[in-house]
Structure formats: C-alpha cells, structure tokens
C-alpha cells in the first residue's frame, strides 16, 4: 500500500486536468458549428450582422482553442505518465481511436489556420465558409474518438484474457462497444447545447449591460433557438444513457439513484439525504426509475443489494446526477419559454429578469458538463477498466506526483485567468458598434 499517495495524487491531477480541459474542449466542439451557422445565415439573408457575429466568435475561439490544445496535450501525455499500467493495457486494445483522433486534430488545426487568415481573400464568401467545414468535422470527430476511448473504459470489449495475456484483440469491436452510441451522442450533443447557451448568455449580458443593438438581439434569438433543439436532444439521449446504464453498468445507475433494493415499479428519488440506507427528504416520483431504466413502469431495476461493497461506486454521485438533470430540464424550459414568448410577443421574455436567467444559463450548462463527467467517471470506480483493471492497480509508482499536482494547478490558474483577461480585453477594446460603424464607412452604408 506504499503506493497509496501516488494513487491519490494521480487521481486528483487527472481530475483537475480533465475538468479544466473539458471546458475548452466543449467550446472547441461547439463553437465551429455556431460560427458556421451564423456565417451561413449571414450569406443567406445577406445580413452583415450575422457575418460579424461569426467573425467575432472566431476571434474569441482562437483564444479558447489555444488553451484547449495545450491542456489536451497535457492530458494526452498525463495518461501515460500517471496511469502507465492502464495505458500499457489499453494501448493494446483501444489505441486505434486515440490514433485516429490525432488525424482529426491535424485536420482541424490545418483548416483553422487557413480559415483565420483568409477572411478577405475570397471573392465568394461561400468558399471561405467551406473552409470551416473541415474545422467543425475535425473538432467533432476528436470528441467522438476520445469518447470512444472513454466508453471502452466503461464497457471493455474486443479482447479476451487468457492466462493474464491479451488475446483475440479486435480493435473495431473495442471501438464499437455497448457504451459507445449513447456516450458519443450525448457528449457531442451536450457540447452543441452548452455552446449555444454560453453564446446566448453573452448576448443577453451585452443587452443588459451596454447596448440594445439589434446585433445582440439577433444573436440571442439564433443561439436560443439552437439551444432549444440541442437541449431537447440532450434530454432524450440522456434518457437513453440511463437505459444503457441499467443494462450494462447497473451499479452506476443504482448508486446514482440511491436504489438499494432490486425491485419492480421502482420510484425515482430526487435529491434528499442519506441516512444509512434510508433516503430522507427526497422527492419521490413513482415508477419513474423503472421508466428511466427500461421504458416501462413495471420493469425490474437492479439495486445495490446485488453488488459487493468493494465494487460499489461512491454514493455522492447521486447529487451529480440530479443537478445535471435539473440543469438540463431548466434549460429546456428556459429556451422553450423564450421561443413561445417571442412568437406570442410576451413582454416578459425581454425583461431584464428573464435576461439575467439567460445569462445564468451559460455557466449552468458548463457546470452540467462537469457534473456529467464526474458522474460518469466517479460512477465507474473502483474500476479504471470496468471489471478488468482497478484504478488502484493502474497508477504510477513515481513518488513525485504531488509536486506535479501543485505545478499543474498553478498552470491552470494562470491559463484560466489569462483566458478571461484576454477575452475581456479583446471585446472591450473593439466593441460591436465601433466595428459596425467602421464597416459602414467602408461600404458606403448600404447595409444597416
């Protein structure tokens, strides 16, 4: 057990790096799509505001990509540095999507470089827009491939173990494991959703503080519409994720739901606190857990009674799950009210109170991303490869992890503050109104 400390610090460092990277990674997946939509709408409607939206988002995007790239490089190396035993094993079976991911990065990096430096180089703006397609494909596919690796950790497939040796390795089967469909789609869709709400929050904030320019209203309108679509998709796929868990990782679902006894007609317990095995002060929704797990109110749901204590994940993941779902539902509601409200011309949706709610939606959706990942990762414990390799057996034996944890915490602090300061300065020094005026002067005012 001399390795206990290295293990603990390796865990913290992994958690820290991933939790930091995922913010930038999520933006990296979602923003190119938003830029693409805005630029396309701008061309279609011949409305310069949307083009400018795309342009300004791109400027911010470059900054977040840079931090995404460097923190991604960090986590890529740290996987081998902190979990050498895991990577040795995993490398034999799941290296393929990791390798393919680097091509997705390559693709994205090359075309992003080209896109950034060719705004005014094409006569036809559609050609410029076309350059964004490989960027969006590249970043979405990096999410797809890395999530395949992660789903393999939850549902390892594509190999056999005979006498402690790996045999019959099938890389494709390892990639297309049972966790893959729900996990990949949930991750990609939540990234789109999050970015829509983050950009909506920025627009709402500008409307509250600063200017009442139609530019921001158009931005808000567009992002919330996209947000509505993707938040509904998130909830639907989230429901499928629950069904996946019920079938393949019932201990994770049972721990997340504080479902101790296997039973039919299982109710869903929201919130509450735990007193021994008794759940207190929770909101009980009859049959809802059976519905979530199997889509039928009478279905039997496996409880924690079926599992040994030493393979049960920590029970606090219940809160992670509940808050994630709550945020998801609130955001569906928020964008739905906005949508109906604008269609029916309710004054309410343009009030500052409602706009503050929209501002809140941005950070909340990022929080939901973090909660979801913590749920998924902590809920897999004690396994690093479910059923095959325990986290405690996978960690490095190097004794300097604590020092590295401090160094990296410092690094992320600097990068986090740097991002905020630079983004704020970038947009404060160059407000939309000014940029629109410059454009008008340039174009002779044929666009408003």
């Amino acid at each position, binding site marked *: 057990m001399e390795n206990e400390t290295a293990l603990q610090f390796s865990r913290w460092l992994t958690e820290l790096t991933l939790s930091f990277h995922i913010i930038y990674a999520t933006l990296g997946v979602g923003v190119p799509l938003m830029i693409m939509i805005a630029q396309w709408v701008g061309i279609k409607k011949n409305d310069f505001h949307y083009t400018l939206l795309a342009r300004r988002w791109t400027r911010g995007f470059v900054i977040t990509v840079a931090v995404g790239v460097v923190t991604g490089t960090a986590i890529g*190396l740290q996987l081998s540095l902190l*979990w050498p035993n895991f990577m040795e094993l995993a490398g034999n079976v799941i290296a393929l999507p990791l390798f393919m991911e680097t*091509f997705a990065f*390559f693709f994205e990096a090359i075309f992003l470089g080209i896109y950034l430096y060719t705004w005014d180089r094409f006569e036809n703006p559609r050609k410029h827009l076309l350059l964004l397609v490989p960027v969006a494909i590249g970043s979405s596919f990096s999410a797809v491939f890395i999530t395949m690796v992660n789903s393999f950790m939850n549902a390892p497939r594509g190999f056999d173990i005979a006498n402690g040796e790996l045999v019959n390795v099938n*890389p494709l089967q390892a990639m297309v494991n049972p966790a893959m469909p729900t996990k990949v789609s949930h991750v990609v869709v939540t990234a789109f959703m999050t970015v829509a709400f983050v950009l909506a929050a920025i627009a709402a904030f500008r409307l509250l503080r600063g200017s009442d320019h139609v530019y921001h209203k158009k931005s808000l309108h567009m992002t919330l519409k996209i947000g509505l679509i993707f938040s509904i998709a998130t909830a639907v796929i989230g429901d499928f994720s629950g069904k996946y868990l019920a079938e393949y990782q019932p201990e994770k679902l049972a721990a997340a739901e504080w479902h101790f006894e296997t039973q039919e007609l299982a109710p869903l317990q929201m919130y509450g606190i735990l007193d021994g095995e008794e759940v207190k002060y929770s909101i009980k929704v009859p049959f809802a857990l059976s519905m979530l797990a199997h889509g039928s109110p009478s279905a039997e749901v496996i409880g924690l009674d079926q599992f040994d204590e030493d393979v049960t994940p920590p029970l606090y993941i219940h809160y992670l799950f509940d808050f994630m779902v709550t945020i998801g539902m609130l955001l569906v509601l928020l964008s739905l009210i906005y949508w109906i409200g604008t269609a029916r011309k309710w004054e309410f949706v343009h009030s500052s109170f409602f706009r503050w709610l929209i501002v809140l939606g941005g950070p909340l959706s990022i929080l939901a991303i973090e909660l979801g990942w913590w749920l998924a990762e902590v809920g897999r414990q004690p396994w690093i490869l479910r059923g095959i390799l325990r986290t405690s057996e996978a960690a490095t034996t190097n004794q300097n992890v604590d020092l*590295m944890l401090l*160094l990296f915490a410092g690094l992320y602090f600097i990068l986090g503050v740097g991002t905020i300061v630079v983004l704020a300065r970038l947009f404060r020094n160059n407000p939309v109104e000014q940029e629109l005026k410059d454009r008008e002067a340039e174009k002779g005012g044929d666009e408003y």
Partner: protein
Amino acid sequence: MTLTLDLEIIGMVVLWTFLFGYIMVASIDFGAGFFHAFSLFSGTNHILANVIQRYLSPVWEVTNVFLVFFFVGVVGFFPKTAYYYGTTLLVPASFAIILLAIRGSYYAFQTYGAKEHKGYAFMYGLSGLLLPASLSIVLTISEGGFVSLVDGSPVLDYWALFTSPLTWSIVLLSIVASLYISAVFLTWYANKAKDYKAAAIMRKYALIWALPLIITAGGIIYELQFHNDVHYQRIFDLWWMFALSFLLFVVTVCLLWIRKNYGLALILLLGQFSLAFYAYGISHYPYLLYPHLTLYDSFTNQAMAISLIVAFLAGFSLLLPSLYLLLRLFLFNKDYVEGNRSS
C-alpha cells in the same frame, strides 16, 4: 546489418518520421521565438518581427499536432513504452508540458488578444530554449544507464542523469540545433519575402551557430563511447551516413557564406539533419530503452498494428493534400510571404 520489413519497423519508421517532422518545425518555432525576444533587446525588432510573425501565426497549432501524433503513436504501436517511459518521465515530461502550455497559450494571447509585451516575448524566447533541452532528455534516457528496476518498477536516477556529460552534450546540441535550423529557415523565408535586412541578420545568426552545432554533435558521439559502447560501435558502422550528413552541412554553410541560393541551402539542411537523425535511429535499433526495452518485445498485437497502419494510410491521404494547401497558401504564396495579404 539486416533489416527485414516487419510491422515493427514500419511502425517505427512512421513514428520516427513524424518525430523528425516535429523536430524540424518545432526548431524553427523555438528558434524564432528566441530571435524575436533577442531582437527586442538588441533593437533589431522592427526588422525581424514581421517575418517571424507572418510565418508562425498560421502554423503553430499544426506544429503541436506533430508532437501529439508522435506520442500517441508510440503508445499505440509500442504500448510497453507507456509503462517504462510513463513511469520514469513524470517530472521531465511534466516540465515540458508546462513549458509548451505557457508558450502556446501566450503566443495566442499575445498575437490574437493583447498588444506586444516585452515580458511575454521574453518568456516565449526563454521557453524556446528550455523546451528542446527538456524534450531531449528523453533521448538521453533512452541510451540506458539512468533507469533501473526497483521491485519491478522502473526508477529514474536523477543524480546520474544530471551529472552525466552525455546529458549536457545532448542538451547543448538540441539548443544549438534549433537555433541553427531556425536561422537557416528564416534566412530563406526573409529573402523570399524580399526583406533583405532581416535576411542579412538571420544569415549572420546561421553562420554564428554553425560551428557550435558541429562541435556539440561531435561531442555527443565522443561522450557516447564512455556511456554506451554498443551504440557507439553501431554508429561507427554507419559512418558513411554521418559523413554524408557532414558534407551537406559544409555545402549549406558555404552557400550561406557566399549568399547564394538559400533555397538549396535549406534543402541541404533538411538532408543533413534527416541523414543524421535516421542514422542515429538505425544505430539505436532495436532498442527503445537500453537495455530494458526493444522494438520487438514492446510491440502491440498483430490486429492492432494492422489497423493502426490502415488508419495511418487513410489519415495520411487526407492530411497530405491539406498540408499542401496550407503550405501553398502561406509558405509558398508570394503575396502572403511578402506581406501584401494579411488576415
């Protein structure tokens, strides 16, 4: 020496080639950062800044991917390296990551966000020197003698590592090489941009760093005989490759000296370094880490190897045209290089 074309060899050649690619583009980047910082303090900034910025801006992210490709590929093709190198390299690799992170993000912060700042430029230049040094430690460790197995887990002996003359000659070479490569490249690039003042300065730097380069390179071979005699002998078996490399080096320097044909000088420089780099690699064969790990006992299974190679071929056929497009738009585009077209 017999090299049969095993999957192991194919995998290693691919990875070694990407590592070479990384070393070349990253050296240009590291050196450029240093020259840029140096110019701020020596008052030549107004001459150099343009050329350096114009080249670096569109490509820095691509540079990083070369590195990612290399280490992800190594773990894919040779999973056991994750165990040996992963356990031992925690500290040096973490330092390298932190330097890379600060460098990359501050480059973006400065170029796209804030105004020119001497402090950033200084950090950027300094990290450009420290990075080759810290990355090159991996090569030193691979020579063996610094890693021992304690209770079955590999442990790095820092004291031996940092007191070894071999370590310091490799560190020196890596720094000098990146300055030299960068200077030759920027001479060519500035000349192409018709920025003759900048070209003159870069040419001077290239010539300054040429002699140290060859001295440090010789120094490593000299040190190696005391450290790893097996490897030393194998280097001598490949003397002709190193000799050819040296010849190319001499011609490059002559071209720079007489101010003729910088394009050819750059090509010869690529030839020089690739010869030396592959000769070094071949002489290292079959060891990935003396004496614990070879290409063969760390190799992945057949199924994975084949799927990685197929994925590589598919990916590469996508990549090559895109890279070509990037180079055509920025490196070989007359208007862009000359600064007639910017963002």
